[in-house]
């Protein structure tokens, strides 16, 4: 492994913050490996993402706006990434740990006969090995795992692990050769629903509600205003998702999302182990719960014992007032 390749996951040029986190870190890792950083940008209308990435320390940005990337599942993306990896030579490939990032990584691992480490929060170069830090077993252990020396390595990176910093962009945008191929499984329709919401995994603050909220309305009337005041997103426990109060894509925990915001506020959530594993790595944890003995108190920085319906609106007001004074 000498170079670093960033897979710039995007949808019509729209990308998640994690792409820019990878772009910010890639140059440092490449320097430690004695190589250069490159990005691969694929799909229709993705040229504007390639342009944005020229603000980061890449040597080249390989671009193909092949519209077919949207017609098939991840097959064309895997083919393009493998072609880019071949062209750029031995490299470490950084992929966001997202729903589709995980699929891409597994397939690329086999295609390139590469080692792979998942859900990485730190990458260090140690001699001829690349050492990755990642939480395992629902965060119960933090492991350091080395990719043994090999031509290729694949790493999926947890969102919010690296800071975004633009610097020293001198990259050329170069075309990646078109691979005109057809694949067996075809996407027949593609429907967008509520994509304007801030992605839960990337939000700097998460306000999560549980069974204690008693129904769907408080998610809109209580939590949403607080999340807006804090510039964050609304999440939920499984009990709330199972009850149909919120869609499953807001569920946090073992069978939901893993989030690591700077601030996590759990409202009416008891703090079951299956919930804890999805949020325990958050910066600061605040819980609002009626029950002083709720397990969430065991791993919160602050537990306020009281009625969420009375506390949350007041808290939102205090934050809004404070913001008003500063602006």
């Amino acid at each position, binding site marked *: 492994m000498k170079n670093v390749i960033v897979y710039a996951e995007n949808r019509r040029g729209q990308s998640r913050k994690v792409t820019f986190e990878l772009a910010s870190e890639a140059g440092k890792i490449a320097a430690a490996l004695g190589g250069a950083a490159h990005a691969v940008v694929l799909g229709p209308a993705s040229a504007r993402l390639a342009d944005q990435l020229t603000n980061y320390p890449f040597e080249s940005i390989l671009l193909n706006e092949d519209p077919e990337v949207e017609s098939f*599942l*991840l097959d064309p993306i895997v083919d393009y990434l493998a072609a880019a990896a071949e062209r750029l030579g031995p490299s470490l490939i950084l992929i966001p*740990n997202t*729903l*589709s990032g995980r*699929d891409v*990584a*597994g*397939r690329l*691992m*086999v295609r390139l006969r*590469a080692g*792979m480490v998942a*859900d990485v929060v730190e990458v260090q170069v140690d001699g001829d090995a690349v*050492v990755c830090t990642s*939480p*395992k*077993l*629902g965060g*119960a252990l933090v*492991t*350091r*795992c*080395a990719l043994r020396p*090999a031509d290729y390595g694949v790493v*999926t990176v947890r969102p919010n692990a690296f800071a975004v910093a633009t610097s020293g962009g001198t990259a050329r945008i170069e075309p990646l050769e078109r691979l005109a191929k057809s694949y*067996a*499984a*075809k*996407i027949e*329709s593609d*429907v967008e629903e509520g*994509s304007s919401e801030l992605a839960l995994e990337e939000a700097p*603050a998460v306000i999560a509600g549980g069974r204690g909220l008693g129904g769907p309305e408080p998610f809109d009337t209580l939590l949403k205003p607080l999340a807006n005041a*804090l510039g964050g997103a609304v999440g939920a426990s499984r009990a709330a998702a199972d009850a149909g109060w919120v869609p499953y*894509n807001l569920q946090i925990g073992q069978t*939901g999302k893993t989030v690591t915001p700077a601030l996590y506020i759990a409202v009416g959530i008891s703090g079951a182990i299956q919930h804890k594993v999805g949020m*325990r790595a958050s910066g*600061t*944890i*605040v819980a*609002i719960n009626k029950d*002083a003995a709720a397990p969430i*108190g065991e*791993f*919160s*920085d*602050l*537990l*306020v*014992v*009281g*009625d969420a*319906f*009375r*506390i949350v609106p*007041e*808290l939102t007001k*205090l934050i809004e007032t*404070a913001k008003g004074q500063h602006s």
Partner: protein
Amino acid sequence: MKVVVTVKLVPNPNAEKRIDPENKRLVRAGVETVLNPYDEYALEAALQLKERVGGDTTVTIFSMAPDSLKEGLRRALAMGADDAVVLSDPGLEGSDVWATAAAMAAALRTLPFDLLIVGGLTDDSSTGATPGALAEHLGLPCITNARKIEISDGAIEVERETDTGYQTVRGPLPALLTTALTFAEPRYASLKGIMGAKKKNIATKTLQDLSLDVPVGAAGSKTELRSFAPPPARGKGKTVEAADGPAGARAIFDFLAEKRLV
């Protein structure tokens, strides 16, 4: 139709997890195991297909696990799977995701199937890379995060959830699927199911039964665990009894202000 579901036995999430400091592997002996939650959803999807398609449809469980754990698969058989195949060999110990996928793929090549349903993520290793890796090894279409499945005339139509909505996908069989958690709640085993499972067959395969072209186990792995530690301790913080709403809000606000979070 033949459906194979991959099921991993993982430590109970409530049990304490330890890594053996000598060989740096998760201590599985003496720790209660459960079916990996995502795999229960995969199995539920398979069982519903069996009920819908009917005929001679069978559901086979496949697991790679130490011999000592294989009885744990009776729980999957009790839910309604027909039989199970376990790949078990001391030579597999210490396999990382690369070696695991290579060994699983080689074993799956020996089983006939039209549909392979894989869980989305494991509780213990959580790479989420296994479905893609198996699809690549076996040359199958890889349709992940399915919430609705229709089968007709050797083709499969799937509604799959994406980060921002959903897609419908059509492909040929055989294919590999993973299921979304919205598919349907996994069923509980009935008493009859539990009794019946005792008589169902769990076949064992070893590495000798496979034609593998790469080394597996610790030696065949491409990664190596260097060290591990518990995360920085997160002690019990402050508890404040709020006399009323404004007092509770003030306590939180002051705390956040002190931490420069507001």
